[in-house]
């Protein structure tokens, strides 16, 4: 590769590129989390793991009056880590009532033993992290 500089994403001097997941059982494990292509998808360790256009059920009473928000993910704006959870700040719309906006940080997966795992988003009710008790 000649003079090519590899972007290996070492935490030490990339500052903020890789996420140190503090609550991960394996100490020191880093997981690279990125939102790319105009918010089209979440990259985890350089693999596309969550894409826009998924339909999620949310428990988010502040977002709209529907008992369960029937939420289409239209765009991701941020990714964050809260404990072992990986959450995406997502712009979208409740397709039942039409309310649109950002319902909060929505957990889409988690880190276990240093590896990212998707939640079964089709079959769970997602609760924005800021709404959680305790």
């Amino acid at each position, binding site marked *: *590769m*000649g003079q*090519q*500089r*590899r*972007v*290996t*994403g070492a*935490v030490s001097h*990339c*500052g*903020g*590129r*890789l*996420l*140190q997941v503090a609550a991960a059982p394996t100490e020191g494990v880093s997981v*690279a*989390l*990125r*939102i*790319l*292509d*105009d*918010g*089209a*998808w979440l*990259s985890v*360790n*350089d*693999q*596309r*793991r969550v*894409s*826009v*256009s*998924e*339909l999620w059920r949310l428990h988010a009473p502040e977002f709209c009056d529907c008992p369960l928000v*029937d939420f*289409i993910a*239209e*765009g991701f*704006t*941020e*990714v*964050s*880590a*809260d404990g072992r959870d990986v959450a995406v700040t997502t712009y979208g*719309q409740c*397709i*039942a009532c*039409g309310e649109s906006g950002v319902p909060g940080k929505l957990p889409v997966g988690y880190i276990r033993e240093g*590896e*990212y*795992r*998707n939640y079964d988003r089709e079959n769970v009710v997602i609760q924005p992290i800021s709404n959680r008790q305790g």
Partner: protein
Amino acid sequence: MVDAGPDCLRAGLLGGCMPTDVEKWKSEIYGNEIREHLMEFAEDGWESIPEDEHDAWFERFKWWGLYHQRNGQESYFMMRIGTPNGVLEPGQTEVVAEIADEYARGPETNPEFGDGYVDWTTRQSIQLHWIKLEDIPDIFEKLEANGLSTQQACGDSWRNIVGNPMAGKAPEFVDALPVIQELNETFKGNDDHSNLPRKWKVSVTGSPDGSGQGDINDLALEPASKEIDGEEVRGFNVRVGGGLSRNEPRLARDIDVFVRPENAAEVAGGISALFREHGDREDRYNARIKFLVDEWGTEKMRRVLQEDFVDFELESAGEDIREQYTYNAGGEEHGDLIGVHEQRDGKYYVGLNVLVGRMGADDTLELADLANEYGSGEVRISQRQNVMITDVAEEDLDALLDEPLLEDYSPDPHPFMRGSVACTGTEFCSLSIVETKNRQVRYARWLKENVELPDGVEDFHIHLSGCTASCAQPQIADISLRGMKTRKDGEPVEALDIGLGGGLGENPQFADWVGQRVPADEVPGAIENLLATFEDNREGSETFREFIARHDEETLEEFIEPEETSYEDPYMHNTKMTWYPYAEDDDMDASPAPTDGDGNSIDATPADD
């Protein structure tokens, strides 16, 4: 809690304000130097790209016109070829057709378009799909040997420059093509302008019809005149900060600058440099210059341009000719360059309608042959995804019009066919929410067969975009369609939001989104009902755009009456969750991707899914 920005993690843990990952990658390797690495990866094969560097390299590859296809199609790329002002010189169309035929073939076929096809885009470029990394050196060699390039076709730099595709041939107030060529030569591969905060879309128009669509570009040069030292000088007025994406449409704003053609490169370069220095590199969502114009206002934009980026005294804006704009202006004049038109040299050009801009490789080759046989060999691409054969002698017109290819790509198409524009959609695109091109083909055919347009309506634009990125430019159509989801009988289905009344012209207007989440199979019925409402309530010879403008939003919402009809939609399921919407087994797990250079699968499935 640790937060990551739009495209990277911003580690509060590590402190300081960090550039986005994309900006860091760009600061390390970007622009021309990407090519060396791209070629090495191509030589060594898909698996030679380190797995933990995929994001970085795929972001960089865009600068060379390569966009990694969506989830389920790993290792395949969309390749965009930039053709300034949509001009394909003699011989180039044949080259594009041959490349599409040989390399743009995927593991499955599209039921409407088969395999191996060319997309003419809304920015007068060309897109090919299913390109394998390993084939790129051969493709580049063939393109470049014939004067074509993918350089800066995507990525954060000067994109393909657009304008009236017939610049240099059709009547013009000021000659635009030499300016476009100078800008292209100056800013393609120019290290000073190769790494901008975001994409940089430029339109240069010299014709009096407004067909350069300057209003929706980052930088627009529009025809104008100005008296300078007692002499009338023809040149361009400068507008900055237009664009349609992200639910934040903006019209380009007048910064009170007139530029002579010979100074266009210096002024355009000054504005590009201003964007380079002052655009937002910390938030890609806020990076386009339209947001800087929002923040600064036009007076500051002009002042900073004058003080810091241009070495001569800028002229104030000249007198524009916007009142002459007919292109997509809401009247009955087509303005779309379809059909037979006389050039200023006495020869003719023939504009052919390409439904949703997609043409098979065989047909593209035939197009090249016809251009050679009847014209100069040149073909031009319009921003309505159509093509023009130029330089046809009057005595050859009848024979050209009798050619069988023109039965499928008509110079006199039905309004529903000529008015259809569609983006790439979930077939290949990461952002799109719904299937688009095949659906719009089916819409146009059904509408043509089943719906009569009211008297006198010859021009009717329906644009279908899969998401808010707005690549099909939905906000400037009579009927704007944008991808969404809804539930029907309890099941999730693909749906569309419906907007009304958009268009360009002297007084451009963005569509008003008045119909929400209409199931995709009920959209043709909604259009049929809307047109009936228009016919019943129209005042005199009122145009559709005038009719829409006359009603308030609440009334327009009532005009949207979705209805099931005989139209059938095979793409109601969640096409984005398939690896390819038209595959017999479309389950994501059935994807053959990624594949090696021979198309053989390489197992790279994440462990937990």
